[in-house]
């Protein structure tokens, strides 16, 4: 494998036909596939992006929205670093399903997962059924880390979406790394005495474990 600083797992979920595959294709291949048929199972793409001077590899799992693939897609939540929940701004029902998806995310995903809400197909103009305000409010109320309206057709915000994902995950990861180093340093410095330092080592260890959990 080529050299990269971090590898992140990004999982896209949302109702069937909201444009998940098109978003991913636009980002990874720069094309908008017209007449894209429904995804079967899970699609998989890799793209390397740069955050600052670091090379970041994004592993993108583009799941099928249809109900019959649910048990397959559910298995991807736990190890995801970022979950991108997509709805179609010109389709109210796809927005109405968001609480259901959120429920899934909360029950299967890691608690520290980066949650991103995306309203796709803003190019549809007059056909819009979900105003931006409503989407933003929903994302605020449900503590999404980021909200964005995109269009895979005219490329609005597509690159920005994935850049944000990469940047935020990288910053989080760097913070965790630093903390682990800090704890380790603390642990070695004060380990000559007994009592306190054992706890510190434990803490460093748990920190390390949690960091590993995220890396998976």
């Amino acid at each position, binding site marked *: 494998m080529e050299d990269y600083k971090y590898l992140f797992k990004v999982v896209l979920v949302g109702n069937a036909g909201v444009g998940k595959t098109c978003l991913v294709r636009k980002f990874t291949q720069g094309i908008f596939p017209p007449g894209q*048929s429904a995804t*079967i*199972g*899970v*699609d*998989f793409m*890799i793209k390397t992006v740069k955050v600052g001077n670091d090379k970041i590899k994004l*592993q993108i799992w583009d799941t099928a929205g249809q109900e*019959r*693939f*649910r*048990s*397959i897609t559910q*298995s*991807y939540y*736990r*190890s995801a670093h970022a979950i991108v929940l997509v709805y179609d701004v010109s389709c109210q029902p796809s927005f109405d399903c968001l609480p259901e998806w959120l429920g899934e995310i909360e*029950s299967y995903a890691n608690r520290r997962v980066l949650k991103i809400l995306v309203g796709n197909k803003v190019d549809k103009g007059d056909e819009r059924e979900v105003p931006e305000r409503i989407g933003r409010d929903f994302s605020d109320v449900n503590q999404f880390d980021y909200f964005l309206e995109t269009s895979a057709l005219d490329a609005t915000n597509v690159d920005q979406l994935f850049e944000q994902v990469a940047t935020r995950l990288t910053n989080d990861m760097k913070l965790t790394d630093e903390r682990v180093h800090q704890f380790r340093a603390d642990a070695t410095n004060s380990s*000559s005495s007994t009592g306190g330092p*054992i706890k510190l*080592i434990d803490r460093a*260890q748990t920190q*390390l*474990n949690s960091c*590993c*959990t995220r*890396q*998976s």
Partner: protein
Amino acid sequence: MPEPILHSKFLSGLPAGRKNGVRHGEKPEKVGEKQFDFTRKIRELRLELEIKKREEERIEKDIAIILEENTIDGGEQNRSFGLAVTRLNNHMLVVENSAKQLTSALKNISVLADTISGRVSALDVAKTRVVGCLQLAGDMRDLGVCAEGIDDAIRSEDFETASQHIHRFLTLDQAVFQIREFKQKDATDSIRHSYEVLSSAKERLSKILKSRLTESVQKGDVAEMQRFIKMFPLIHEPDEGLQRYSVFLNQKIDKLAEDNLAIMKAGGTDDNRRNVLYADTLFMFFEGVAEIIESNLPVLEHSYGLEKLLDFMFILQARIDEFFRRLHEEFDTRRRLSHFNRLVDDVIHQKKAAEAVEDAPDPMEIDAIASEICMMNTSAEMYWRFVSRRIGKNEVIRSPSGDGDDEENEEARQERHRLRKEAKEQKMDQLLNRSRVGTKMQELIGNYCLLEHFYMLKSVQKAIKSDVKEDAGGLTSSIVDDVVFIIRKSIRRAAGSGNVDSVCATINNATALIDTVVHGHLRQSIQQGYVTSSNFASEAFTAYQQGKPVKEAADAQKEQFLLALNNSAKLSELLIELQKGLITEWAGVKRPDVEKNKLEHSTTQIEESAKKLASLAKHGVEELFKSAFKNKIKQGADPYQEIDRQMTMQDVEYYEAHDPFMEQFLAQIDRLLVENEPLLFADNYQTLLLLTSSEIARQIEQSLAKCQFNRYGALQLDREYRQICAYLTNVAGWSAREKVGRLGQIVSLLNVETIDEAMEVWHNSKAMTSSATIRTLTLPEVRKVLALRADFPTVAIKSIE
């Protein structure tokens, strides 16, 4: 002539000027000095004048001579020049004439060329018309022949010939039929007549063929059917033919379906395969369908071509879907799939409290159903592969031969080829993924993933519950092998289904189980801690309170701890092995790149789970080390500072024979290690060794910080350091050397003659260890170390930089 004019000017002009000049100059003299005698002067002047006159004459003569010479020459030149010009002029006239001739000649030629090309193009037109006429005539003749032959052919039931006639008729140029609209009555009459005859014949033939085919389908006469089916494309009604033929094939498929369903409902032919009854049925059915297609496709392929073939598959698919619907229904009710699904979903996602699910399904039953679904998917995949191979193969043969249009440019052809391929792929996708069989199968695979997850969960839970240490000598217990076995089995089963997504999902679920349930179980045992005599008192108290025999409880806990520790390390190792095994296992299977990528990235999760377990094991070893080793090493190192380090040469020599400390210290540690070695898994023991190495280095460092050295003391220290190194390298290998690297630096700093030499040593070590994991001593640390040398002046140490 110019010469005389020039001459006269010359004569009159210049002497006159001079005379004037002289006159102006003489006048005042004449007026003012009348008394003076000018005679001499005048004579002089006259003489001079005379000289000048002669000179003038001579010059004039000269000029005349020169001019004369020149005039003679110039005249001659002029003459010859004039002649040349005349000659040239004559030549020019000749050239002009020739040019004029050339022009007219060219004009002629161009006129001629125009005429010729005009004739050629006229000929060309004539030729195409002739060809057209010939074609038309041929067509008309064919038309006549067809019209004449058709009735006979139909009457004599020679449908092959008849349909050939119709085919010829239908492919005739439209121009033929336009002829009947004009000019001579008698000629157009015959054409119109033929046209009408053939049109009606076509209708009749079409009707006859349809009824004959239907009839033969009803009778099940394969030879007749295959005879008639070939004719439909000839009379341009392929869909009619396909429709009728598919009725026949659909009957066959339906019959096959009925037979298979009947056998299935009767419980199958083999009691041993009862639990894969439905998968077997599906397999038999697909085999049958494939056989039907295989035996009928060549005929269709030959006379209908590829595009129609795919359409034909769609017609058949409806019946296959119908069969599958019935099979699935039966499967669902008999195997209680929906029921189990609900229960399993509840268990996995803990939607109900654990005790509420009292009728939790038996994992063994789930196991069987999971296997059966996998087998069903395998059959379906095999059938799809058969279909795409049959139809995909045709494409490859067709495309290179193309349409024979060499003039058509390559790009356009490729573009068309691409479009056709895309359309075909879309149709294939439609057939494979969106047909009922396709979607139902996807649904079943979804169910399967859930069931597999449940099976793994329950099996792992069971493995944890029934965890036993196999034999007294073993370091690990049954859980390690069980867990790996379960996971391997599930992943392999998923891989056997042929559906990559289900493999990935199973790997996801399996690693989730390891990270949560298994990891949690092991961590719990490790977190309870390692019991040693030092913390025995508190443990004993707890045990006493719980009413357990104190010694036994402590031993049991100790054993549990070690077991969990070793299990983690072993499991980690086995998981890495499993991952590698899966990769090599799958390397030979041909798959699209996307699917390969999926699998590759999914398997890395197994490795990550393994790493987590390894770090858990490491954490456990640290615990063990803390409670069983750390204090003992510290106690062992304590006496070190009691030795006086301000030695004499005699002391050093004496210590060489009678070791004051180190031998005993190392022997003590060795006893500890030897005691623990058989209790620990190899990886864990190595971790322990490294921890011990670091701790020894640290303790010695701390102890020597309390001593004061002289040169001989340092020498003794160096000897001791070598002892430590030799011992650790011996037991723990080279990686242990790294752990005592810092101590090594301190020792070499102390083993110097002067401060300058110490600085040199320090700078050297800095340069050498720049990239290594060992940190070099900092300047304050160096000062501190050097201060341990009692013989170095404090002021000098303070001033180093």
